[in-house]
Every structure is written in C-alpha cells, then in structure tokens.
C-alpha cells in the first residue's frame, strides 16, 4: 500500500465534501445578510419616493428571499449552466451596489492583488520569522532570544494600521522610496507586503522558537550531540524538521487569511484588493458581492488546508492520513 493511494483517497473525499461545505457556508451567509436591516439600493442622505423604493426592492427580488437564494445558488454553482437555463457557468451575478460590474469581474480584479500581497507577505514572514525563531530557539534564554521574542511581541500586538501608517509616512512620504498608496508597480506592493507580513512573521518566530527549544531537549537530538554533532548541526539535521511542523499547520490558514486580503492594509495603502471590496460590500449590504467573496474565501481555506495535510504527510511520514487503511 503506497502513501499516494491514501493521499488520493483523502483528496477525493475532501473534494466531495467541498460542495457541501460551500453550500452550508453560503446558506448561513445569506441568512445573516438577510437579518441585517437595510437595503443595498439605499444610500446615505437621500431617500427615493415610496414607489421608487418599492421598485428597488422588487428589482433584485429582495421581497422573495427564497426565490432569490435558489436562483443565486443555481447560477453560482454552475447547475443552471449545465441544465442550460443560464448562459454563463459560475455566474455570481451583478454587484448590487456597483451595477456596472459583475461579482466575477470584481473578484477577478481583486483576488490577484490580494493574493500577490498575501503571498509576498507570507514569504517575507517565513524568512524573517524562521530566522528569528531559529536564533531564539538555538539558545533559549540568551540575549538574542530575548531580543527576537520582544520584537515578535511588538509585531503581534501593534495593529497594522499603525505600522502601515508609520511605514507610509517614513518610507513613502519622507524618504520618497516608494509611491504613496495605489497599485500598479512592484514598488506599490512593497509596503503593503511588509506591513501585512509583520504579525505573521512574529507568530512564526514564536512557534519556531518554542518548537526548536523543545526539540533540542529530545533524546534523539541530545544523542546526536553526544555523538559529536555541534548544536547547530544537530538542530539543522534533526530538530528543525520536527520543530517546523507547527509552523506548517499554521501556514495553511495563515496563507488563506493573507491571500484573501486584509481590509486594514488595503485601505491604508489604497490597494484595490478583495479585502476592501468585501468589507465595503458588507457595509453596503451588497448581498451578491459578499456571498461571492465568501464562496471564494471558503474554497481557498478548504483547499489550502488540504494542501497543508498533504505537505504534512510528506514532511513527516509517521503522520497517519485518515484515509489510509491499517
């Protein structure tokens, strides 16, 4: 029985679960959106006359939640397309607040932006966090450990609108190294990536530091050192791989969170990412936009968790994949 047999079983089962999970999440999101008072067609100051307001509710079948949801689910899932009643597959409908854009277009425009920043941030976080974690974990209690842990604490606790604004004032406005806000060139992406990476880097540093310190105390590492390996060699050859496991399991959801966009970072740097579109959608009760983004979020989260499980099994073959028969 090869490992890949169990692996493909796992993948198949997760893939079969995916539509059920997504369906449930969609239904809950829809119910929550329905409970929030208000109307997506309404804006701040002015209110239209009674007959226009009534027409607004009818326009998107907001007076018939059941029918609205059923139609939406059929179109979004692609069932309507397979049956032939709708021309486009996976059509998430027009945005209610931005009628010139379909939700698919909005996600297609926002996701690459958020994903770029998110992946960049995770990459920076991995490099910075691992370095700091290893420095601390190799010599727990030393001054370098204290310093990196203190920095990590700052990284976790200072909110990104503070670090973001500071970086913006310092690097963009004063030193003019990068543009202030907006999107378009790699220079635009630098500060958002850096800002977003800080809390992740700090968390990784802490996970790795404690994992490594623990591993260094285990029998096999101590045996290795007794046999003549230096502390550093023992760490690299025997401790690091195991110490890295908690980081790996954290990376799945962390990548999903980073990639789907941070509202705060995107707002501070005026980046047109999915996080900003999502929060604006919630505030404006843009039902179709919010449901579409939630759907993408949920799918990403499920898929990235699956990826982590696969990587886990690859790094540490002792870990049982649930699908593997005894």
């Amino acid at each position, binding site marked *: 029985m090869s490992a890949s047999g169990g692996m493909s079983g796992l993948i198949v089962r997760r893939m079969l679960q995916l539509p059920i999970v997504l369906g449930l999440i969609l239904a809950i999101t829809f119910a929550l959106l329905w409970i929030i008072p208000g109307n997506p067609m309404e804006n701040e100051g002015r209110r239209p006359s009674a007959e226009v307001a009534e027409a607004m509710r009818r326009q998107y079948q907001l007076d018939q939640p059941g029918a609205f949801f059923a139609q939406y689910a059929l179109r979004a899932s692609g069932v309507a397309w397979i049956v032939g009643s709708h021309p486009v597959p996976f059509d998430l409908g027009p945005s209610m607040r931005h009628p010139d854009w379909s939700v698919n277009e909005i996600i297609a425009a926002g996701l690459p932006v958020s994903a770029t920043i998110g992946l960049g941030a995770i990459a920076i976080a991995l490099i910075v966090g691992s370095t700091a974690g290893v420095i601390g974990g190799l010599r727990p209690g030393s001054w370098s450990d204290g310093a990196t842990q203190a920095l990590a604490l700052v990284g976790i606790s200072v909110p990104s609108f503070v670090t973001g604004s500071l970086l913006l004032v310092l690097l*963009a406005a004063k030193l003019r190294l990068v543009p202030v806000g907006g999107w378009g*060139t790699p220079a635009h992406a630098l500060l958002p990536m850096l800002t977003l990476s800080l809390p992740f880097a700090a968390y990784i540093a802490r996970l790795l530091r404690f994992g490594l310190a623990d591993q260094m105390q285990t029998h096999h590492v101590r045996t290795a050192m007794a046999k003549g390996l230096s502390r550093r060699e023992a760490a690299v050859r025997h401790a690091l791989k195991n110490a890295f496991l908690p980081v790996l399991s954290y990376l799945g959801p962390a990548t999903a969170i980073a990639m789907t966009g941070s509202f705060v970072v995107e707002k501070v740097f*005026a980046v047109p990412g999915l996080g900003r579109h999502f929060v604006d959608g919630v505030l404006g009760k843009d039902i179709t936009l919010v449901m579409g983004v939630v759907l993408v979020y949920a799918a990403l989260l499920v898929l990235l968790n699956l990826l982590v499980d696969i990587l886990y099994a690859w790094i540490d073959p002792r870990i049982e994949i649930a699908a593997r028969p005894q």
Partner: protein
Amino acid sequence: MRWTAGIVGALTLLVMFIGSWESGARRADVRVASADVFTLDPQRMTYMQDLRVARALFEGLCCSDPDTGDVVEGAAKSWSVSPDGRSYTFHLRPDARWNNGDPLTAEDFKQAWRRLLLPDLAADYAELLFPVVGARAFFAWRASQLEAYAKGEKHSADAAQDLWRQTIARFDSTVGIEAPDAHTLVVRLEQPVPYWLDICGFQSLSPVHRPTLERFSRIDPETAMLRTEPGWTKPGVLVCNGAMQLADWKYKRSMLLEPNPMYRGAHPAQALSVEIVPIEDASTAVLAYESGSIDWVSDLTAEFRAELVNAGRRDVHVLPAFGTDFWSFNCRPTMPDGRFNPFADARVRRAFARAVDKRALVQSVTRLHEPIATTLVPPGSIAGYESPAGLPYDLTAARAELAAAGWKDRNGDGLIENAEGSVFPPVEMLFMTGNPRVRGIASALAAMWRDGLGVQCDVRGKDGKFAKEDLRAGNFMIARGGWYGDYLDPTTFLDLSRTGNGNNDRGFSDERFDALLRDAERALDPAQRLRLLSEAERLIMEEEMPILPLCRYVTLYMYDPDRLRGIVRTPRLDQRLQRLRMGGGDAQGETP
C-alpha cells in the same frame, strides 16, 4: 506528480503576479483623489462623485453655468417655452455627435428618459421626471404590471416581450415626451415647473447611446423586467456625448478620462486627461498629495480636516456647499411604542432650537468655522429668494418657551418638570456611529441642553443600518440629519417637510405649510412664487421648527491654485473635469 503540480501552481501565481503590474509612468495630466465611482450609467446614478464624472462624459439638453448658476445651452442649441409654462420645445444641435461619430438625436433623449421612468431600473432620481404629463402614472402602471406578472402563472419569454411592447406603446401614447423629428424634443408638464431647465441639465436626464444599450439589454422571462448587463459602461464600450470619454476603468483602482475629439469646439491643445484614483483613507490621500502623485484631493472627510484648515495653508480650500447640516425633531404625537413625545409640541422644539449656541459648535467642536445656519435653504444661493431670519441663539427666550409649554424647574433640582411634577423625559438623541464630527456635535448639543434647559439627554450612537431603521420608524426624539440640494430651487429643501414626503423623517405635517407649497406650485409669477416659498420656510424655521439647522456643509479641497485651475468654488461645487487646466494665469480665460 507532486512536483509538476507544485510548479504549475507556482507558475500560475507568478503569471497572476506579473499580470497585475503595469508601467509606473503617470498616465494622466491631472490626478484626482476622489470617493469611488459606483456607476457610469447616468440613469442609475446617485452619488456626487458619479454625477461629477457624468458631467464630463455626458451632455444634457442644457446645463447650468457652474459659476453663475444661469442655464446655458448644452446638446440643445435653443428652446422655447409655451406661454402657460407647461410645454418646452428643445432644438438639438444638428451637428451633435456621439464619440463614435453617430449623430445625437432627440430619440436618444426620449429613450433615456423612458429608461429613467422604468421601475425595472429603480432609478433613485426617477421622480425628477414626475412633473411630466403622465410620467408618474406610467411608472405606477408599469410597476403594477410587473407585480401582476410576478404573481401570475404565465412566465415565458413571449409574455415578457409582449408586456414590454405594451409598455413602449403606453409610454408613447400617455407620457408627454415626444420626438417629432431627429432634432426636436417636446416635453409637456402637468403644471409649470420654474426650475425645469435646471432639471433638464441634471445628469440623470443625460442621453444614452441606444445601439450600445440594446446590445446589453434583455427582457428577463422570470420577472418581465428590462435587465441591463453590467458591461455597457466599460471602456471601449461606453459611447458618450460629453466633452470627455472613458479611456480606462479598473474597479476601485483608477478611472482614466480623456478629451472627446468628437465634442463640439474641442480644444485639443488645452484639454487634459484626468485620472480619478479612489483613495478612501484620508491620511493616505493627503500623503499622496504631499508626495506629488495627486493634484487634487476632491473631498477630505473626517478627522483630518480641522488640523489642515487651521494650519492656514494656501492649498487647503474650505468651500461652503449647497447643503445644510441639521438635526431633526420627532414631530409625531407619540413615540412608536406609545410613550409620551415632548417634541410633538412646537414650543418645546423652538426652545431646544434657541438653546443651541451654533457659533460655539463651529468654533470649538467642528473647528471648521462653517457659516452657521438659522434657515434650511442656504441664503444667497438662489437668485431672487429672500431667506427668513430664523431663530437666533437666545437662552432666555428658550426657557420662556419651555415655561409656556409647562416645563420649568419646580423643585429646584436643576431638572425641569411639568405641572404634574413629572420630569422631562431623557431626550433620545439618535445618530450614526463612525463619524467623529457627528459624535462631537451630539455631545455638545446634549451639554448645551442639559446646562441651558435642565434636561437629561440620552446620546445614542447606532450602527448605520440600525440608525436608519430607527429614523424611518420615528424611534428617536432628536436625530441627526442633513441635506444637499439637488436643483437650484428652494423646494429641493422645503419638500423635506411636506406631509408624507419620503424624506420627511420627522413625521412633520402642517396644513398651512403644505398649502403654501401648493399655492407656490400654481403661482405663475416667479417672484410671487418665491415669496410664497419664503413664507413657507419662515413657517418651519421660526414657528413650527421640525428641523434645527446648525450650519452650512463645507467641502474641503486640497490643490495648489498656482498649478491647477478651473475648479468651481460656487456653492453647488458643480465641477467640470473638462475645465481643469494646469499652470498659472487667468483662471477663466479659455474655458469652453
């Protein structure tokens, strides 16, 4: 296997990554930071930033000169009005063209206006056309037909198309909008509307390019409604007739407008391209301006304003807008749960209004030194209209009004009671959270009323949607309000207090006031009409007091007046992006 998948995944991400880059070069002559544009469909617009872009992309029959407020010609080169003021005949310029070269015709206007009047579209500004003969009835008829269709069993493409054909026929036969030839548009009104030309210049009444729209429209067999696919306003697709055209638009990222070469009298040498960049965060917008990547911050909101204004900078401009910041009194006889509402009594309302020191508010709370207001219609904004005086700050008079209403401090505890000894109920003040300015004003008002009148205030900030629900249900005693005028006429403000008006949050109803507005509608002499409206405003600003005006709204711009010219500074802030010019010199010289 594993590695191939990994490599494919990494490559995909790399392509996504690279695909979203573009060159860092500045794309436009002028870069404007603005709130995000919601839609470029002129009939569906509501927001100021959308209307501003529409003024560049589309040209209505006529328009009001942004500096003088006078109506000047637009797509129509002339017009005539019948002696009874009910019939307007517009003559379009025979050489007027869309930017793709198609001729602009009266039919383009007619169908755009029909579109505005379709409940299918649920246009916010549909009611602008309700003065037209048969318009309101047409809207109601189509709405009832759609409702009947939705309830009925027979849902088919044919039935929906059939209803659509009936709708067009009904519009043609009952609504007073006709296009007798390609360059003539005749509009008949139910009664004279003195500001009708101003409405004709409003962006919701802009023409649409029919062939483009038709490509993106379909009749939905489920609901029988006319649906417009979200594609016709995209760059390369949108056909417009204004001084500018859409070169690029990326969702919440940037919009690029360039001069329309087909526009009459185009000035290619001077015309500038304009890029609109949505930056929501105020501090980022200011930093972007400071770093030179933005030339004009076109609406600075919230926390930054006071610091910037009081720094005395030459590039920070505080401009009074055509709007009034006010608070609403609940005028309904009781609260929605049946509790006693002390503000049903006009004497109490007047007392609370007189007890507000508005000068202190603008000096030490908002710190923007806005012009304080005792009337709803901004004085001096409408030619020939005489504003009433309103009620000044006068604590003695305020206490006397309360005493006359039976409220005074009878037991010396510092709180006022009525004759039965019941204390004045805690004043429930409603406002939306999230705006520090409003929160500051609410607290200051509560303090003024507590110290000046001896009442307790319950300051209730609520989240937007919940606050709106309370406002609509009348579940407040005093609530934050505010209004920007839509057209240059006092009724754009006064209608708020009409019985049953959709924006009458106060539940105010006064027969004398309604009668004055009705008389004004019938008045043929414009001066007489304005006198009636002025009397109506006096009634609500000196006697009935459903609304407590605080100050004029101001808009805050950041731009260097030596570098950027052509920004309108008159109260309607009716900006024309096509008039922006770079460099110093005479600001008015060569504007088209």
